[in-house]
Protein backbone atom coordinates (compact mmCIF):
# COMPACT_ATOMS: atom_id res chain seq x y z
CA UNK A 1 0.00 0.00 0.00
CA UNK A 2 1.31 3.43 -0.94
CA UNK A 3 1.26 5.58 2.17
CA UNK A 4 2.19 9.24 2.25
CA UNK A 5 2.85 11.74 5.02
CA UNK A 6 3.21 15.45 4.26
CA UNK A 7 4.92 18.24 6.23
CA UNK A 8 3.73 21.83 5.62
CA UNK A 9 5.99 24.69 6.72
CA UNK A 10 4.51 27.64 4.76
CA UNK A 11 1.67 29.87 6.06
CA UNK A 12 -1.81 30.15 4.48
CA UNK A 13 -1.02 33.54 2.94
CA UNK A 14 1.97 32.08 1.05
CA UNK A 15 1.21 30.99 -2.49
CA UNK A 16 3.63 28.10 -2.00
CA UNK A 17 0.86 26.48 0.03
CA UNK A 18 -1.34 26.23 -3.08
CA UNK A 19 1.24 23.91 -4.65
CA UNK A 20 1.23 21.77 -1.51
CA UNK A 21 -2.57 21.62 -1.45
CA UNK A 22 -2.75 20.70 -5.12
CA UNK A 23 -0.21 17.93 -4.52
CA UNK A 24 -2.06 16.50 -1.51
CA UNK A 25 -5.39 16.60 -3.32
CA UNK A 26 -3.86 14.92 -6.39
CA UNK A 27 -2.50 12.16 -4.12
CA UNK A 28 -5.91 11.63 -2.50
CA UNK A 29 -7.65 11.57 -5.91
CA UNK A 30 -5.08 9.01 -7.11
CA UNK A 31 -6.09 6.76 -4.22
CA UNK A 32 -2.87 7.20 -2.23
CA UNK A 33 -3.35 6.66 1.49
CA UNK A 34 -2.32 10.05 2.90
CA UNK A 35 -1.92 9.06 6.55
CA UNK A 36 -1.56 12.64 7.75
CA UNK A 37 -0.43 16.21 7.19
CA UNK A 38 1.84 17.69 9.84
CA UNK A 39 1.94 21.51 10.08
CA UNK A 40 5.26 22.82 11.42
CA UNK A 41 6.99 26.22 11.61
CA UNK A 42 4.84 28.88 9.87
CA UNK A 43 2.61 26.05 8.60
CA UNK A 44 0.74 26.07 11.93
CA UNK A 45 -0.76 29.45 10.99
CA UNK A 46 -3.30 27.45 8.95
CA UNK A 47 -5.03 26.49 12.20
CA UNK A 48 -5.54 30.09 13.36
CA UNK A 49 -9.32 30.44 13.46
CA UNK A 50 -9.13 34.24 13.31
CA UNK A 51 -7.27 34.55 10.03
CA UNK A 52 -9.18 36.51 7.46
CA UNK A 53 -7.92 36.37 3.89
CA UNK A 54 -9.54 38.74 1.36
CA UNK A 55 -12.41 36.90 -0.35
CA UNK A 56 -10.86 37.24 -3.81
CA UNK A 57 -7.62 35.60 -2.64
CA UNK A 58 -6.96 31.85 -2.51
CA UNK A 59 -8.65 30.31 0.55
CA UNK A 60 -6.02 27.80 1.65
CA UNK A 61 -7.60 27.10 5.03
CA UNK A 62 -10.99 26.29 3.52
CA UNK A 63 -9.24 23.96 1.08
CA UNK A 64 -7.57 22.02 3.92
CA UNK A 65 -10.92 21.82 5.73
CA UNK A 66 -12.55 20.42 2.60
CA UNK A 67 -9.87 17.74 2.19
CA UNK A 68 -10.12 16.87 5.87
CA UNK A 69 -13.88 16.39 5.61
CA UNK A 70 -14.03 14.65 2.25
CA UNK A 71 -11.14 12.22 2.83
CA UNK A 72 -11.00 12.10 6.65
CA UNK A 73 -7.49 13.50 6.18
CA UNK A 74 -5.78 13.99 9.56
CA UNK A 75 -4.36 17.52 9.95
CA UNK A 76 -1.92 17.86 12.86
CA UNK A 77 -0.47 21.13 14.11
CA UNK A 78 2.69 21.23 16.22
CA UNK A 79 1.76 22.76 19.56
CA UNK A 80 5.18 24.31 20.26
CA UNK A 81 5.21 26.06 16.90
CA UNK A 82 1.58 27.12 17.42
CA UNK A 83 2.18 28.67 20.85
CA UNK A 84 5.08 30.73 19.46
CA UNK A 85 2.63 32.08 16.87
CA UNK A 86 -0.20 32.91 19.26
CA UNK A 87 -2.49 30.04 18.38
CA UNK A 88 -2.63 27.08 20.75
CA UNK A 89 -2.23 29.00 24.02
CA UNK A 90 -3.07 27.04 27.16
CA UNK A 91 -6.30 25.21 26.43
CA UNK A 92 -6.13 22.30 23.99
CA UNK A 93 -9.73 22.84 22.95
CA UNK A 94 -10.20 26.55 22.45
CA UNK A 95 -11.81 28.96 20.02
CA UNK A 96 -8.50 30.04 18.51
CA UNK A 97 -7.98 26.74 16.75
CA UNK A 98 -9.81 25.74 13.63
CA UNK A 99 -11.72 22.53 14.39
CA UNK A 100 -10.41 20.73 11.31
CA UNK A 101 -6.96 20.62 12.93
CA UNK A 102 -5.70 18.41 15.76
CA UNK A 103 -3.21 19.85 18.24
CA UNK A 104 -0.29 17.40 18.37
CA UNK A 105 3.31 17.26 19.43
CA UNK A 106 6.38 16.47 17.37
CA UNK A 107 5.83 12.84 18.46
CA UNK A 108 3.08 12.72 15.86
CA UNK A 109 5.66 13.57 13.19
CA UNK A 110 7.72 10.57 14.34
CA UNK A 111 4.62 8.39 14.11
CA UNK A 112 3.77 9.61 10.59
CA UNK A 113 7.37 9.33 9.39
CA UNK A 114 7.87 5.77 10.57
CA UNK A 115 4.51 4.62 9.16
CA UNK A 116 4.64 6.35 5.78
CA UNK A 117 6.35 4.89 2.75
CA UNK A 118 7.04 8.46 1.59
CA UNK A 119 7.50 11.73 3.49
CA UNK A 120 7.20 14.96 1.49
CA UNK A 121 7.93 18.43 2.84
CA UNK A 122 6.44 21.66 1.45
Amino acid at each position, binding site marked *: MKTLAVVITTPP*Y*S*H*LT*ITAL*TYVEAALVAGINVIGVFFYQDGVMHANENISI*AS*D*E*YQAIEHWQRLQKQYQLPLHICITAAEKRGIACDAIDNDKINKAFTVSGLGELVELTTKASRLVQF
Partner: protein
Amino acid sequence: MTSIEQNSSASPQESVLAIINSKAPFSSSHGKDALDVALIFAAFEQKVSLFFQGDGVYQLMDKQDGSLLGIKDYLKTFSAFEFYDIEDIYVCQPSLASRQLDEDFHIDDVQVLSSIEFGLALNRHQHVLRF
Protein backbone atom coordinates in the same frame (compact mmCIF):
# COMPACT_ATOMS: atom_id res chain seq x y z
CA MET B 1 16.89 53.40 -22.60
CA THR B 2 16.73 56.69 -20.76
CA SER B 3 19.73 58.70 -19.76
CA ILE B 4 20.28 60.14 -16.31
CA GLU B 5 20.06 63.66 -17.73
CA GLN B 6 16.51 63.07 -18.92
CA ASN B 7 15.55 61.57 -15.56
CA SER B 8 16.96 64.50 -13.69
CA SER B 9 15.10 67.03 -15.79
CA ALA B 10 11.89 65.02 -15.50
CA SER B 11 11.95 64.98 -11.71
CA PRO B 12 14.42 67.52 -10.37
CA GLN B 13 12.95 67.56 -6.86
CA GLU B 14 13.67 64.80 -4.38
CA SER B 15 10.95 62.16 -4.13
CA VAL B 16 9.90 61.10 -0.67
CA LEU B 17 10.07 57.32 -1.11
CA ALA B 18 11.86 54.76 -3.26
CA ILE B 19 10.63 51.17 -3.04
CA ILE B 20 13.06 48.48 -4.16
CA ASN B 21 11.34 45.28 -5.32
CA SER B 22 13.75 42.37 -4.98
CA LYS B 23 11.51 39.28 -4.97
CA ALA B 24 9.82 37.29 -7.71
CA PRO B 25 6.06 37.90 -7.90
CA PHE B 26 4.18 34.71 -7.08
CA SER B 27 5.84 32.62 -4.35
CA SER B 28 6.02 35.32 -1.68
CA SER B 29 3.77 38.24 -0.80
CA HIS B 30 6.61 40.79 -0.83
CA GLY B 31 5.63 42.15 -4.25
CA LYS B 32 2.00 42.63 -3.23
CA ASP B 33 3.04 44.19 0.11
CA ALA B 34 5.31 46.64 -1.73
CA LEU B 35 2.53 47.49 -4.19
CA ASP B 36 0.13 48.27 -1.33
CA VAL B 37 2.69 50.68 0.14
CA ALA B 38 3.25 52.36 -3.25
CA LEU B 39 -0.46 52.86 -3.88
CA ILE B 40 -1.14 54.33 -0.44
CA PHE B 41 1.69 56.83 -0.83
CA ALA B 42 0.28 57.80 -4.21
CA ALA B 43 -3.23 58.07 -2.75
CA PHE B 44 -1.85 60.52 -0.18
CA GLU B 45 -0.24 62.42 -3.07
CA GLN B 46 3.28 61.60 -1.97
CA LYS B 47 5.79 61.03 -4.74
CA VAL B 48 6.89 57.39 -4.82
CA SER B 49 9.23 55.63 -7.25
CA LEU B 50 9.53 51.91 -7.92
CA PHE B 51 12.82 50.11 -8.41
CA PHE B 52 13.10 46.53 -9.66
CA GLN B 53 16.33 44.65 -9.01
CA GLY B 54 17.40 41.02 -8.72
CA ASP B 55 14.46 38.61 -8.91
CA GLY B 56 12.23 41.65 -8.50
CA VAL B 57 12.55 42.27 -12.25
CA TYR B 58 10.33 39.21 -12.85
CA GLN B 59 7.41 41.33 -11.58
CA LEU B 60 7.64 43.44 -14.73
CA MET B 61 7.84 40.72 -17.37
CA ASP B 62 5.12 40.51 -19.99
CA LYS B 63 2.86 37.51 -20.68
CA GLN B 64 2.69 36.34 -17.07
CA ASP B 65 -0.59 34.96 -15.79
CA GLY B 66 -0.89 34.33 -12.06
CA SER B 67 -4.45 33.04 -12.52
CA LEU B 68 -2.89 29.79 -13.81
CA LEU B 69 -1.67 29.28 -10.23
CA GLY B 70 -5.12 29.86 -8.77
CA ILE B 71 -4.09 33.20 -7.29
CA LYS B 72 -5.32 36.71 -7.73
CA ASP B 73 -2.77 38.30 -10.02
CA TYR B 74 -1.74 41.55 -8.33
CA LEU B 75 0.56 42.36 -11.28
CA LYS B 76 -2.50 43.50 -13.24
CA THR B 77 -2.77 46.43 -10.80
CA PHE B 78 0.52 47.77 -12.21
CA SER B 79 -1.54 49.19 -15.08
CA ALA B 80 -3.05 51.64 -12.56
CA PHE B 81 0.33 53.32 -11.97
CA GLU B 82 -0.43 55.98 -14.54
CA PHE B 83 -3.75 56.82 -12.88
CA TYR B 84 -1.97 57.06 -9.52
CA ASP B 85 0.77 59.30 -10.98
CA ILE B 86 3.44 56.70 -10.23
CA GLU B 87 5.69 57.62 -13.12
CA ASP B 88 9.21 56.73 -12.06
CA ILE B 89 9.68 53.02 -12.61
CA TYR B 90 13.25 51.84 -12.86
CA VAL B 91 14.61 48.40 -13.67
CA CYS B 92 18.19 47.22 -13.24
CA GLN B 93 19.62 46.22 -16.63
CA PRO B 94 22.25 43.74 -15.29
CA SER B 95 19.47 41.95 -13.37
CA LEU B 96 17.59 41.51 -16.67
CA ALA B 97 20.70 40.39 -18.51
CA SER B 98 21.79 37.76 -15.99
CA ARG B 99 18.28 36.27 -16.14
CA GLN B 100 18.32 36.30 -19.97
CA LEU B 101 15.25 38.54 -20.03
CA ASP B 102 14.33 40.91 -22.86
CA GLU B 103 13.04 44.43 -22.19
CA ASP B 104 9.52 43.17 -22.67
CA PHE B 105 7.36 44.60 -19.88
CA HIS B 106 3.64 44.45 -19.16
CA ILE B 107 3.53 48.19 -18.42
CA ASP B 108 4.81 51.17 -20.37
CA ASP B 109 7.45 53.75 -19.48
CA VAL B 110 9.76 51.46 -17.56
CA GLN B 111 13.24 52.96 -17.51
CA VAL B 112 16.05 50.42 -17.92
CA LEU B 113 19.15 51.64 -16.09
CA SER B 114 22.73 50.51 -15.64
CA SER B 115 23.84 49.72 -12.07
CA ILE B 116 25.41 53.15 -11.74
CA GLU B 117 22.31 54.95 -13.06
CA PHE B 118 20.12 52.74 -10.86
CA GLY B 119 22.15 53.76 -7.80
CA LEU B 120 22.04 57.45 -8.77
CA ALA B 121 18.27 57.29 -9.25
CA LEU B 122 17.93 55.72 -5.78
CA ASN B 123 19.99 58.58 -4.42
CA ARG B 124 17.40 61.11 -5.53
CA HIS B 125 14.96 59.82 -2.89
CA GLN B 126 14.67 60.82 0.73
CA HIS B 127 13.73 57.37 2.08
CA VAL B 128 14.07 53.80 0.82
CA LEU B 129 12.10 50.67 1.65
CA ARG B 130 13.01 47.29 0.19
CA PHE B 131 10.72 44.28 -0.24
